[in-house]
């Protein structure tokens, strides 16, 4: 959630800001931190208006002004007492948009001005005692230490390309111009200009000068006492010297002016000394900051290198983890398959016995099947014969149906045949009788033929004998007339 992320950021800033305070007073803030952490958890846990939460967290009164809340966050982040200050400033520097950086600096400076105004109103009620005391007091009373504000100013100069480091140049004489609200330092040797804070040592000196200027009228004196363009010459009227009271007062005033001039000179000297000290301190601070930034940049580089390295390692480890995860997944799958296969093996072992019996049965069935194959052929033949017989039967039935009208004729023919047979038998009997008679007749005929033959032979013989006898009679005298009568 975005709101919880922003709350985390705010809590981080508050925590980092409060840590440094804890270093100073650990015991007094220990319970407060515990309360804050509890409060933080409750903030992250529950819903509600984020700006109100942020306002509570930042302990600001601007619960409805998000600009003020975010500004106070920024102010807290870049404050000197924040331990992560440099990282937060680095993040501002990492923003590539100059207008954003400028606006952030305006916000920071605006907040500083506000603080200064608050401080100024406090200070005006206090008598200015001495520079050291006022400086010390301002350090003690300001929520932001002096060096914090000055370093922020230097930071502003860094951001805006100011050349505060050139302050060590003797040509860069610092000019101080004052107005009612603030002071500004401008270098004549460069274009840099820096707004001075009211809680800096200069502020108190300038306040002192301003108090005196107000007492004697504006622009009666200037810091350098001579070359101010705003300087006015006091024109004194003749009555001013004639009145004894006035003369006395004038003398007192002149003495005061002298004293003030002396003070002014002393102050000027102090200002110059303070300026020099400030410049030196600023230089030192800048050098230290430059070194810090250099170290920080090196550390950031190292960190980025390490981060890249660790990110690469992390990527590699992630890849390996993914591979291992895949491998583990495969192993798990293989395990599951193995367990399934073991179950199947158990089932199959149980089935193995059944398999042997079924194999025997199968063998028997095969044998039977082989036997049945011969039977099958026979069955096929039988079926073919049966089909042929059926066909024959059908054919015969068809023939029978065709022969049905002839059956009567057959019956009649059969009767006729029996009659014919009977007649034939009778004829055969007659024929047999006839043959017997024929045989008898033949025998008789033969006998007759034999008799005829015999008679013919006997005739011949008799003829012969007669011829012979006629021949013999003719020889004996006309015996022939007797034999002709026999023929």
């Amino acid at each position, binding site marked *: 959630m975005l709101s919880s992320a922003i709350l985390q950021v705010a809590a981080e800033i508050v925590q980092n800001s409060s840590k440094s305070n804890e270093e100073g007073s650990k015991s007094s803030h220990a319970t407060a931190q515990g309360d804050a952490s509890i409060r933080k958890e409750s903030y992250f846990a529950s819903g509600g208006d984020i700006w109100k939460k942020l306002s509570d967290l930042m302990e600001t009164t601007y619960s409805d002004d998000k600009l003020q809340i975010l500004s106070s966050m920024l102010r807290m982040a870049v404050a000197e007492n924040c331990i992560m200050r440099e990282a937060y400033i680095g993040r501002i520097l*990492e923003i590539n948009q100059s207008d954003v950086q400028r606006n952030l600096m305006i916000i920071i400076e605006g907040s500083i001005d506000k603080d200064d105004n608050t401080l100024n109103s406090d200070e005006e009620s206090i008598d200015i005692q001495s520079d050291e005391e006022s400086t010390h007091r301002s350090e003690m009373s300001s929520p932001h230490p002096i060096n914090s504000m000055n370093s922020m100013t230097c930071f502003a100069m860094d951001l805006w390309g100011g050349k505060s480091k050139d302050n060590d140049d003797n040509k860069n004489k610092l000019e101080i111009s004052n107005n009612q609200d603030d002071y500004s330092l401008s270098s004549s040797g460069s274009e840099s200009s820096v707004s001075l804070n009211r809680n800096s040592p200069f502020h108190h000196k300038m306040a002192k000068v301003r108090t005196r200027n107000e007492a004697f009228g504006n622009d009666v004196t200037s810091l350098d006492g001579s070359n101010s363009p705003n300087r006015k010459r006091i024109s004194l009227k003749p009555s001013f010297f004639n009145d004894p009271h006035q003369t006395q007062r004038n003398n007192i005033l002149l003495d005061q002016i002298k004293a003030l001039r002396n003070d002014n000179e002393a102050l000027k000297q102090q200002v110059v000394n303070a300026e020099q000290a400030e410049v030196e301190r600023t230089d030192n601070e800048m050098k230290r900051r430059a070194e810090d930034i250099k170290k920080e940049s090196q550390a950031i580089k190292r960190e980025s290198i390490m981060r890249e390295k660790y990110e690469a390692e992390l990527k590699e480890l992630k890849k390996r983890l993914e591979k291992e995860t895949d491998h583990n997944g495969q192993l798990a799958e293989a395990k599951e398959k193995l367990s399934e296969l073991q179950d199947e093996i158990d089932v199959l072992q149980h089935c193995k016995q059944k398999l042997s019996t079924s194999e025997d049965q199968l063998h028997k069935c095969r044998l039977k099947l082989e036997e049945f194959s011969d039977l099958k052929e026979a069955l096929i033949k039988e079926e073919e014969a049966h089909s042929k017989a059926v066909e024959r039967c059908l054919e015969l039935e068809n023939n029978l149906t065709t022969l049905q009208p002839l059956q009567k004729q057959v019956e009649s023919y059969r009767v006729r045949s029996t009659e014919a047979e009977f007649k034939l038998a009778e004829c055969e009997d007659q024929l047999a009788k006839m043959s017997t008679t024929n045989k008898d007749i033949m025998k008789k005929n033969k006998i007759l033929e034999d008799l005829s033959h015999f008679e013919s032979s006997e005739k011949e013989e008799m003829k012969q004998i007669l011829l012979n006898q006629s021949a013999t009679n003719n020889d004996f005298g006309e015996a022939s007339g007797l034999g002709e009568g026999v023929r």
Partner: protein
Amino acid sequence: MSNIETNENLRALVKWICSFPVLSKQLKKHQIDADDNPLLLSEWLDKKDVSL
């Protein structure tokens, strides 16, 4: 302070706060570019318990 200045300052502050890793990760996760319209982000934050 004018509205334009206020908006510019708010924009700058939102840009700054979006540079924190916690927020930038969230924005990356939801593929939100704070450069597009940073004021939109503050509008989102105006909604109570906004969940992107």
